């Protein structure tokens, strides 16, 4: 018994001399990590606020900071009708648009972070896994069946105000089905967590659903430009009314995802261990599918298919805020919002007075990031 090995630093008999000193040390360090998460959140929020302001000031016309702030102030106090032309450009056109960009970006960032946690793979993203395509198929199908499709794509841009309010619901159902299909395919296909299996599954599901959606859109409408803009992601249809329509879906989706944070942390240890911690992987999966589908559906219904925000935002924030989902999910929402607001600003500035669909900008930015992550993984 005397030969029983002891751990370094641990005296026999269970008395641990250095423990009393090192425990506060460890606690201080963990507080430092929490502070890091807090700082990252604050930085992302600041970037978003600055992005919103700059984006509201700039476009075809550059509007001064004071006019912009005055317009926002008047609008908030219910005196928007008194605004001059410049003021109403800010309040009626630009603010709904930049806020829609922020809402859509937050939804994509949060969905991406949650899906990366669910799949335990940093390449999961609503766009790459075919979920956005599922939402677009659901929305198109609902528009077709209700006969609203031609009107929705009139005037060269998507206008959902003509369609009934069930379009986002149909989009959410399509998104959920696509996510379930990707989950089932990637599980059936290969060893668990296999990046290749996951991406292949997502690509197949996405391509099939995009084809179906495109077929429906082109079947009886010759509004190629509007359809094309939707497929590429476009924020030009944003209005206060549409923002109000999108908010309940995006908001409740994000709230559901936030509620999954700790469970997603536990899931990183594997399903078996998560279960012995009292976490139900099944319920967690359903929660993420539900939340991500709602959030993605809101994005796709009102802004089309926007890729890579859900990939890039969580990837950046995981490095800054750490991998714990209680910080990572809100941080990814903020970063996604900031990213999309800035991408939209870029799309409006680069070729003004025309504008690039925001999906093109995010794809140009996100593609290289995707390749970089893929390279690191293999």
């Amino acid at each position, binding site marked *: 018994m005397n030969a029983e*090995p*002891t751990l370094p*630093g641990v005296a026999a008999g269970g008395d641990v001399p250095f423990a009393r000193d090192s425990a506060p040390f*460890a606690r201080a360090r963990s507080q430092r990590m929490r502070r890091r998460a807090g700082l990252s959140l604050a930085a992302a929020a600041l970037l978003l606020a600055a992005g919103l302001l700059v984006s509201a000031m700039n476009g075809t016309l550059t509007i001064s900071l004071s006019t912009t702030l005055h317009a926002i102030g008047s609008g908030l106090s219910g005196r928007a009708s008194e605004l001059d032309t410049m003021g109403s450009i800010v309040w009626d056109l630009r603010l709904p648009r930049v806020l829609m960009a922020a809402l859509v970006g937050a939804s994509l960032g949060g969905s991406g972070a949650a899906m990366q946690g669910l799949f335990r793979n940093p390449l999961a993203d609503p766009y790459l896994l075919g979920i956005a395509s599922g939402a677009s198929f659901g929305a198109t199908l609902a528009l077709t069946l209700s006969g609203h499709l031609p009107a929705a794509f009139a005037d060269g841009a998507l206008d959902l105000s003509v369609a009934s309010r069930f379009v986002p619901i149909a989009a959410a159902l399509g998104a959920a089905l696509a996510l379930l299909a990707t989950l089932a395919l990637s599980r059936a296909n290969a060893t668990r967590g296999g990046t290749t299996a996951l991406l292949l599954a997502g690509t197949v599901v996405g391509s099939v659903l995009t084809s179906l959606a495109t077929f429906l859109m082109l079947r009886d409408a010759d509004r190629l430009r509007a359809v094309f803009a939707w497929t590429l992601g476009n924020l030009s249809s944003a209005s206060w009314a549409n923002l109000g329509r999108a908010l309940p879906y995006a908001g409740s989706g994000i709230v559901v995802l936030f509620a999954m944070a700790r469970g997603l*942390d536990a899931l*990183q240890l594997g399903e*078996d*261990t998560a279960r*012995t911690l009292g976490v139900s992987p099944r319920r967690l999966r359903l929660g993420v599918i539900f939340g991500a589908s709602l959030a993605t559906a809101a994005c796709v219904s009102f802004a089309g298919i926007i890729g890579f925000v859900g990939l890039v935002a969580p990837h950046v924030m995981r490095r800054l805020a*750490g991998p714990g989902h209680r910080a990572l999910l809100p941080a990814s929402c903020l970063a996604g919002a900031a990213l999309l607001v800035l991408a939209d600003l870029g799309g409006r500035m680069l070729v003004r007075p025309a504008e690039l669909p925001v999906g093109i900008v995010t794809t140009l930015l996100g593609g290289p990031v995707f390749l970089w992550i893929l390279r690191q993984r293999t």
Partner: protein
Amino acid sequence: MSIVACAQALTVRYGSRTALYEVNLELHVGELVSVVGPNGAGKSTLLKALAGLISASSGRVSRVSAEAHKLAYLAQSERLPGDFSARELVELGRIAHSGLWRRLSAKDELAVEGAMRRTSTLELADRELGSLSGGEQQRVALARALAQEPRLLLLDEPTSHLDLRHQAELLAVVRREAEGGTCVVVVLHDLSLAAQTDRCVVLAGGVLRAQGRPDAVLNAESLSQIYETPIEVVRTHAGELAVIPTRFAPTNSGATT
């Protein structure tokens, strides 16, 4: 001794394959039990069944307390999230107590620190798991299980990636847990390590072949038969059992793995 968990005529089938057949096992408070046997003997299946992760095809597993936090399970070569810090990982063990919503309480913090101290991982607290050696990762993973303060601790081959010193250290840590009242069940490949536990459970082909004190169970003749390779059991001059495979001579069938 009071019982923590038991298996009664436990049978587990995967499709047409029977992984465990009518296993009877009682686990007691403060006991360090090793589970040994050749590959495919059903060791991991037994552990998962005891953990409630797979259900019995027939027979039953009963635990005194059904609450999740009374049980901790460490899977065979558990895949750790490389970007979590060691401390963040160990804190996850407290989910079993605090649930998914509450923040960590002072009691949780104490449990985390205690678990990390007992596994000598406090100095790794701030390191990312991906930057730790295999042995360090194994210790942090064990700390996560200990932070759950379980009454039943199930460890599936926790020594697989460890060198001799770290194997011995790990056994010393779980020995101390058992002395504190936890029932520890550990799957081991190294029979000499198993000889240092309170009780050995020998599985082969899904059947419980023997169980009891190591010096009663670990005898050369039956082990040679079970493992299908010649094995000698010797006593060191410190009085401990050592199980040694001797030179392998293929049988006529040559069927070994």
